[in-house]
């Protein structure tokens, strides 16, 4: 039972990180109709900047600058590449983002090399015990921060002018333009938010129990894609549920791996994709996605 609760707590915490990344993925899709594969390298960029800047300027300023840098990078990708290809087929745009992702990723890996950069989280790598259940402090703080961000995000999405403009242009871009909504601005803002969310997720994903920033952080981000897709590519609520589902599945598969030995070791790493395929076989547009995703 203790093990179950521990895995549950860790799964939720991991899922909250995935949800942050998946939310970015979903709002980019809603605002600019791009299936963006750049989230992985943006995440790594955030982690790398925070790790490199922590020493010279201190941890908290580094976090701030890291988040801003990642948001700026996302903004530049939107302005310099995506915005210029407005109206291009969805497939071409997706492949363009893969290209951008590879370029950014290659440069980051070259800089990181074979090192594992350390992010000096002030909360260190200690664990706390809640009753019988142990969880790393890093994961606990991550869950809290992600929870707050997710609430703020959903409130803004529902009530702010940005949210209304965003939902209106996602539903019918031409009509939104006729109402004076600047589609380019809505899309740029979505990329900025997605970049910032990825950087926040990065901050915690490279902390305990993960050893630090290495190229492997990139593959962590890749698991947020199944989260977004199984939730429904155009559903923010779906991103949240999908993220939690993937986090829990991964946590349990890793935790109970001894009982699951017939599936082989390391099953936890592939379980996100297994869950995604299983969900999509039953519901091809994801749990909460709109059936009709092709727009005229």
């Amino acid at each position, binding site marked *: 039972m203790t093990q179950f609760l521990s895995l549950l707590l860790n799964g939720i915490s991991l899922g909250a990180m995935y949800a942050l990344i998946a939310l970015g993925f979903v709002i980019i899709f809603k605002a600019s109709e791009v299936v963006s594969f750049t989230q992985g390298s943006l995440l790594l960029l955030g982690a790398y900047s925070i790790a490199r800047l922590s020493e010279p300027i201190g941890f908290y300023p580094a976090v701030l600058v890291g988040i801003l840098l990642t948001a700026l990078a996302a903004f530049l990708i939107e302005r310099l590449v995506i915005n210029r290809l407005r109206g291009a087929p969805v497939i071409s745009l997706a492949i363009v983002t893969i290209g951008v992702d590879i370029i950014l990723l290659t440069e980051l890996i070259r800089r990181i090399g074979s090192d594992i950069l350390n992010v000096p989280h002030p909360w260190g790598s200690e664990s706390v015990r809640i009753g019988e259940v142990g969880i790393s402090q890093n994961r606990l703080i991550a869950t809290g921060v992600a929870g707050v961000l997710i609430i703020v995000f959903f409130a803004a999405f529902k009530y702010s002018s940005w949210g*209304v*403009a965003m939902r*209106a242009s996602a*539903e019918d871009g031409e009509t939104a*333009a006729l*109402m*004076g909504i600047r589609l380019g601005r809505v899309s740029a803002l979505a990329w900025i938010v997605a970049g910032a969310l990825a950087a926040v997720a990065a901050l915690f994903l490279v902390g305990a129990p993960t050893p630090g920033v290495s190229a492997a952080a990139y593959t962590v981000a890749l698991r947020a894609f199944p989260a977004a897709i199984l939730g429904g590519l155009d559903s923010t609520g779906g991103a949240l549920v999908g993220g939690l589902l993937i986090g829990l599945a991964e946590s349990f598969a890793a935790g109970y791996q001894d009982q699951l030995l017939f599936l082989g070791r390391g099953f936890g790493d592939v379980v996100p994709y297994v869950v995604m395929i299983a969900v999509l076989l039953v519901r091809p547009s994801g749990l909460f996605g709109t059936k009709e995703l092709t727009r005229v």
Partner: protein
Amino acid sequence: MLSVDALHVTYGGAVQALRGISLEIPDGKVVAVLGSNGAGKSTLLRTLSGTLRLHRGRIDSGSVRYGDVSLGGRDAAQTVRMGLVQVPEGRRIFGRLTVEENLRAGGMGNRDKAAKARARDRVYEMFPVLKERAGQRGLLLSGGEQQMLAIGRALMASPKLLLLDEPSLGLAPRIIGQIGEVIAEINRQGTSVLLVEQNATMALGVADLAYVLDVGEVSLSGSAAELARTDEVQRLYLGHDSDEPAAAEPLPGTRKTLSRWTA
């Protein structure tokens, strides 16, 4: 005043949709544009509202001026800020947004908060049903209510010139009558209106001036009342027989049979 002069528009560099249209919308007037499918009515509106580029259309020659400012090359958001707001064909309500959020979306181009509040009061006064349903999703409204919402949404931007694209489309005759009254009321409150319609009875009923488009050209123009009396409009748009009741087959010399292929 909005003036269009010898406007030529093509789509994809090949399909000519407008071939030298000239027309004027004087301030404070209601101007109707009639024409069958493919006459170029929607293209004209897209040119005015700055959405032509979204449809891969291009102005080849001619000019569109609003007051002293040329509209060519401006995007939709800039056009809205100049006071030209279009109600799209088929209403295009944001179905997943509530009625109130639809109105908020309509006011996005309006930075002046006080003007927005006034616009909202005016919309709710003109369409009390929208106030009753403020919290409902747009797609739950009836067709007539959706058209009211589409018009109200456009009014949120406090337009000086309202462009209406077939507001009567798919609505019951009684509702069409109400739409006509609404247009007259909006005009009385000081907004000029460009009304693009296939329903000539309603359009000529509220308009001061009217133009008839045919395959990308203006074929008739004049005051709405005069136009309603001409044989051609009577026969083609108002469904009355002309003075020769025997003429059941299409008249020679008209190009109506071809018009639907052009856009």
